[in-house]
């Protein structure tokens, strides 16, 4: 019973669903029972089969196994029975059995162990949910390695035929590296089973080159069948397979010549039998990662763009070096600005900008292929290595006949990637024609030409739009657009009209298509002279009679001649024509022009006009009689008649004309004549002289002095010639001032100096000018200048001296003479009438002592009175002073004119008195002096005459004492006036002292003093010159100086006693 129960309720195969149907109480009770039973079963395991487990690896068969009872020996039979609708039992000698998969639901399994000692039976409930699905261990069919790409290829069979369809399988692949089997990668790979065996591939790119280390690969799987409700488990790992590289004897670095994207990571390794010392990329050293053996690796992160020859990676090995080159760059940029156009509709040129540089050159450079979608044709870009720096690439694509729309795709690829760019073009709208060549111009007529040119291309199906540039000399260029049907033979012609005859044109042309894309470049310029045409009207003519009235001169204008600066051969006739105007033109005029007679009005007034700017405006009143037109002719007034510079015709309704001409020059006078035209001919209406612009005269008027008097000057001048006037004369400016030729410079005439007198002569007909109120015998500076409205002309100056005023001079002489005569007469009369009184007064027969003031002398002198005493002019014998020098080196000075015999004195050779022998005259004061020559001055032997008045000789303080003593002794009594020989020497005087005392009448003074020479005199202190004193014997009482003290250097010293002799003697001796 226990077993049954036990079998009925197997502890770990109980269906949960049943338990959920019982009540809580029942569940608790059951749990209790279950615990009890489990203990019971465990206690009985040894006796019955137990621990039934079933798995499946293909969902079709189940593998069940159980544990036999402990007492069952080897070879014990078991009976495995499945209790379903048809009970099936299997007799087994083992404890496992493979049974077909059972249907869903519980199945009762009875296992009876048939032992010798009896049988033990266990019952199990088997359900699919209790089955574990464990797939068979997969097996790697093949593991291969692509060393160049460091790729492992794994190949295995999924054995799908054993599983129901539509099972998902998860494969787990592990990559192990190095002999130590370090797991480097674990990946899952999903597949679906389709009921058949299938071989699966899986590839893996290793970051480490496969050559560097052994790589191991293992695989397992997990079958995920949705219909199977049991437990699913991973299969066991397959046996690992490995990949290794047989190293060569030489060390080698991997990968070789790899092209990688800039910024990516890469690992390099060196397979070496020897120890690797260091590794570097470029010049940067890297840490070594040690692999199996001596192999090492380095890992480079974020690699930068390489040079054109790549980035070097070098491993230094003892006594060797090995390395590799990596090329880091970019995949090709999308081709930019892809554009396709054609020059000739035969060949398409596609150009593009490659964009960002890839950093890869040579075999790694970007290759381009241009593919046309509609035709399927393509062309490849052939790189010209020299032009690697060009920013644009271009490809030529031959056009496909009858195809207008092109769909171009440009493919760019390099080892790192590819890109493309597409353009769809209607090629007839992308025509950029070649430059037109063989450009020619042909005449049609005088106003039209044919242009022909060559434009290569197959433009037969389209229209061309061409632009013609027409340029006339000195004119704005004209552009004309024309549309031409395209032709196949590339030759084009077009007519260009509306041109001027006989005109030089410059043509050039460029073309485009009607559907405008781009203009071609301009063709070469072509210059062309249009042919001549029949003149449309006669020339502008004028005629004049020659001055003798016998010849008619005819003038004409021809604008055509002025236009052609370079007449060509055809115009030679015209050149001849122009050289012989009269002959040719008379014939011409005979047919075309009706000469009109000319009337001249005699009472015409010449008017003046001044122009403005470049022209001159003439106005006139409207004259209804003038029916044809007006003609204004003009000429340079300095030219002889008939002269004509030009003329101009003005319509008859005009009343003014602005005459302009390039020939006009400022400052030149022109004559303008206005003719009016009537039926019977031209009539001179006005005659005008004028200037375009007035200038200042360039010359001064030529003027002369016609007459001069003491107080006036008459000036006359001439007209300035018209050529030099350069304007209408407005007047003259006359300046005058006192001044000598040398000193006076009449500058700053306009500054208004007060001493310059100005006369403005505005009457230009005036040709003379009298300047009055001048001073006689005075030099005057005269200046004359003309002026116009253009300014002042230059000045012309002259110096004139006015005549002397003779009457005044005469009067000035006569009046003093007359006065002198009258005074003399009156004086004579008075003297005559009073002669008695005069005689009584001045020359009494017996002098009245009272009248002689000598008696008062003592007192006056002693008193030192400064009262003036008059020197009485007594008649006396003139005397002279002779100065004699003892020195022989000096010539004797002698007045040859007046020599007084009494003054002669013998020469004294006294040592004590080395001075000259001096004869002193005391009246009248005629003094002679001889200035020694300069040599004498230097020798110190200067002879000097000092005039000392009488008073000085009597000055007490200046006299030596002995003289004072002698004076009283000399006697103060009256002494008669007598002529005495005067001895010059002191000795003589001293010797005669006694005689003097005994003589009768004597002068009232001691004559010794007269020539007394005092060595102490102040006047003798400074030189050794002699001092001469003199006095008057008759007026010794006079104490006044006759002559002031002489200053030798001053000419004024003679002022008191003026005489010719004195004057000359005082002159410097040069």
């Amino acid at each position: 019973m226990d077993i049954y129960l036990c079998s009925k309720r197997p502890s770990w195969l109980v269906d949960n669903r049943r338990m959920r149907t019982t009540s809580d109480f029942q569940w608790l009770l059951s749990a209790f029972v279950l615990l009890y039973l489990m203990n019971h079963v465990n206690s009985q395991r040894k006796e019955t089969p137990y621990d039934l487990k079933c798995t499946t690896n293909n969902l079709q068969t189940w593998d069940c196994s159980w544990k036999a009872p402990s007492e069952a020996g080897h070879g014990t039979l078991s009976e495995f029975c499945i209790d379903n609708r048809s009970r099936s039992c299997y007799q087994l000698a083992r404890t496992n059995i493979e049974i077909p998969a059972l249907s869903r639901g519980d199945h009762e399994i009875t296992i009876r162990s048939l032992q010798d000692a009896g049988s033990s039976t266990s019952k199990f409930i088997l359900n699919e949910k209790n089955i574990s699905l464990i797939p068979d261990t997969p097996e790697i069919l093949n593991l291969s390695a692509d060393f160049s790409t460091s790729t492992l290829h794994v190949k295995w069979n999924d054995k799908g035929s054993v599983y129901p369809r539509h099972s998902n399988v998860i494969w787990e692949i592990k990559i192990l590296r190095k002999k130590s089997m370090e797991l480097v990668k674990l990946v899952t790979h999903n597949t679906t089973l389709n009921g058949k065996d299938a071989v699966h591939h899986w590839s893996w790119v290793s970051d480490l080159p496969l050559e560097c280390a052994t790589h191991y690969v293992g695989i397992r799987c997990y079958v995920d069948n949705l219909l199977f409700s049991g437990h699913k488990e991973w299969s066991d790992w397959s046996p690992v397979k490995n990949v290794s590289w047989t190293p060569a004897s030489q060390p080698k670095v991997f990968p070789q010549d790899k092209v990688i994207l800039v910024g990516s990571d890469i690992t390099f390794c060196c397979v070496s039998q020897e120890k690797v010392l260091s590794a570097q990329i470029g010049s940067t050293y890297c840490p070594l990662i040690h692999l199996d053996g001596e192999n090492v690796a380095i890992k480079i992160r974020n690699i930068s763009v390489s040079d054109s020859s790549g980035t070097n990676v070098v491993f230094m090995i003892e006594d060797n070096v090995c390395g590799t080159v990596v090329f880091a760059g970019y995949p090709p940029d999308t081709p930019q600005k892809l554009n396709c156009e054609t020059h000739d509709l035969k060949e398409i040129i596609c150009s593009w900008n490659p964009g960002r540089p890839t950093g890869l050159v040579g075999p790694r450079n970007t290759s381009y292929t241009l593919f046309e979608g509609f035709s399927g044709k393509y062309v490849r870009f052939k790189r010209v290595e020299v032009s690697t720096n060009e920013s644009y690439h271009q490809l030529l694509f031959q056009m496909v006949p009858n195809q207008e729309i092109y769909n171009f795709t440009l493919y760019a690829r390099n080892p790192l990637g590819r890109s493309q760019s597409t353009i769809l073009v209607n090629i007839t709208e992308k025509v950029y024609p070649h430059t037109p060549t063989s450009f020619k111009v042909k005449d049609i007529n005088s106003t039209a030409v044919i242009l022909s040119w060559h434009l290569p291309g197959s433009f037969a199906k389209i229209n061309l739009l061409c632009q013609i540039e027409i340029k006339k000399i000195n004119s704005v260029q004209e552009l004309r657009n024309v549309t031409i049907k395209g032709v196949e033979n590339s030759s084009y012609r077009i007519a260009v009209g509306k041109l001027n005859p006989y005109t030089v044109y410059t043509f050039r042309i460029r073309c485009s298509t009607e559907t405008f894309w781009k203009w071609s470049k301009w063709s070469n310029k072509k210059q062309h002279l249009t042919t001549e045409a029949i003149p449309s009207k006669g020339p502008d003519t004028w005629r004049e009679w020659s001055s003798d009235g016998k010849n008619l001169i005819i003038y004409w204008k021809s604008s055509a001649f002025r236009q052609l600066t370079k007449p060509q051969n055809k115009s030679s006739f015209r050149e001849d024509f122009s050289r012989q105007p009269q002959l040719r033109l008379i014939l011409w005029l005979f047919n075309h022009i009706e000469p009109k007679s000319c009337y001249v009005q005699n009472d015409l007034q010449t008017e003046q006009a001044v122009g403005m700017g470049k022209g001159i405006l003439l106005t006139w009143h409207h004259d209804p009689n003038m029916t044809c037109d007006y003609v204004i002719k003009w000429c340079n007034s300095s030219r002889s008649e008939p002269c004509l510079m030009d003329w101009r015709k003005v319509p008859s309704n005009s009343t003014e004309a602005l005459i302009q001409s390039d020939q006009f020059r400022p400052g030149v006078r022109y004559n303008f004549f206005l003719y009016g035209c009537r039926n019977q001919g031209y009539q001179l209406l006005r005659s005008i002289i004028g200037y375009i612009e007035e200038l200042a005269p360039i010359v001064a008027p030529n003027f002369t002095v016609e007459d001069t008097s003491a107080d006036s000057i008459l000036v006359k001048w001439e007209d300035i010639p018209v050529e030099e006037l350069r304007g209408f004369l407005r007047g003259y400016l006359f300046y005058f001032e006192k001044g000598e030729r040398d000193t006076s410079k009449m500058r700053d005439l306009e500054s208004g100096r007060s001493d310059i007198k100005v006369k403005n002569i505005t009457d230009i007909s005036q040709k003379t000018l009298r300047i009055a109120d001048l001073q006689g015998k005075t030099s005057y500076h005269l200046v004359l200048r003309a002026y116009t409205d253009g300014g002042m002309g230059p000045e012309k100056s002259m110096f004139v001296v006015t005549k002397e005023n003779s009457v005044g001079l005469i009067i000035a002489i006569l009046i003093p003479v007359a006065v002198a005569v009258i005074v003399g007469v009156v004086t004579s009369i008075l003297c005559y009438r009073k002669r008695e009184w005069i005689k009584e007064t001045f020359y009494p027969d017996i002098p009245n002592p009272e009248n002689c003031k000598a008696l008062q002398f003592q007192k006056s002198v002693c008193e030192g009175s400064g009262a003036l005493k008059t020197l009485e002019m007594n008649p006396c014998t003139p005397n002279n002073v002779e100065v004699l020098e003892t020195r022989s080196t000096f010539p004797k000075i002698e007045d040859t004119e007046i020599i007084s015999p009494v003054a002669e004195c013998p020469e004294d050779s006294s040592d004590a008195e080395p001075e000259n022998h001096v004869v002193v005259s005391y009246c009248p004061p005629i003094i002679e002096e001889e200035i020694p020559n300069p040599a004498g001055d230097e020798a110190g032997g200067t002879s000097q005459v000092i005039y000392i008045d009488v008073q000085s000789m009597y000055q007490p303080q200046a006299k030596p004492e002995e003289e004072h003593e002698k004076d009283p002794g000399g006697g103060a009594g009256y002494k008669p006036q007598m002529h005495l020989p005067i001895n010059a020497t002191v000795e003589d005087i001293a010797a005669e002292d006694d005689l003097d005392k005994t003589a009768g009448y004597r002068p009232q003074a001691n004559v010794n003093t007269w020539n007394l020479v005092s060595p102490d005199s102040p006047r003798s202190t400074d030189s050794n010159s002699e001092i001469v004193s003199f006095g008057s014997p008759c007026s010794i009482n006079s104490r006044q100086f006759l002559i002031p003290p002489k200053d030798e250097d001053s000419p004024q010293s003679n002022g008191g006693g003026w005489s010719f002799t004195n004057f000359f003697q005082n002159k410097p001796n040069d």
Partner: protein
Amino acid sequence: MNEWAGRVRDLTSFPLPGPLCLLMLLLPLLSPAAPISPAGPISQAYSLAVYMQKNTSTLLQTYLQYQGSPFSDPGFSAPELQLSSLPPAAVSFKIWHALDDGERLSHAQGAFLALTQHLQLVGDDQSDLNPGSPILLAQLGAARLRAQGLLGNMAAIMTALGLPIPPEEDTLGLVPFGASAFERKCRGYVVTREYGHWTDRAVRDLALLKAKYPA
């Protein structure tokens, strides 16, 4: 001749094999019997070699400059790098001294023959690696042409001296085509370096010959 005699004495001071010394002494005596005077070709070859010598260091520097670091680093040198197809110029003085004129010329002839081929190869390599460097390519081309010129001159000398001219060999064979970029760079380095060394050696060889066969 006095100078030459002195040179011979100097040379004989080294322990040279007796027959070789005899040959060297005999050579000047034999030379007048040669059909053409060797002085002209020797002088020409010497001038060319001297001219080449002036450009070899420039070529090497230019070459290294375009190969990137560490080749372009200042003072780069890798004497351990050699090419089996290119005979090294380095030779011990003793061995070199023991060579007779014919052997020297023969060695140089062989070396420059190999160098012309290798320079062509290096030029091709650099067209791939440095296509945008016309200066380097031009210098490599010029060096190759000069090496060819020197070959011609040396052949003329050997003819003048009555020496057999070694047949041209394909020294490169099939080896170089699978080379990696790094191998190409190294190969070019060895070639340009050896070109300089061989030119130096040729200058010395020819100077010796020139002294022996004065014009």
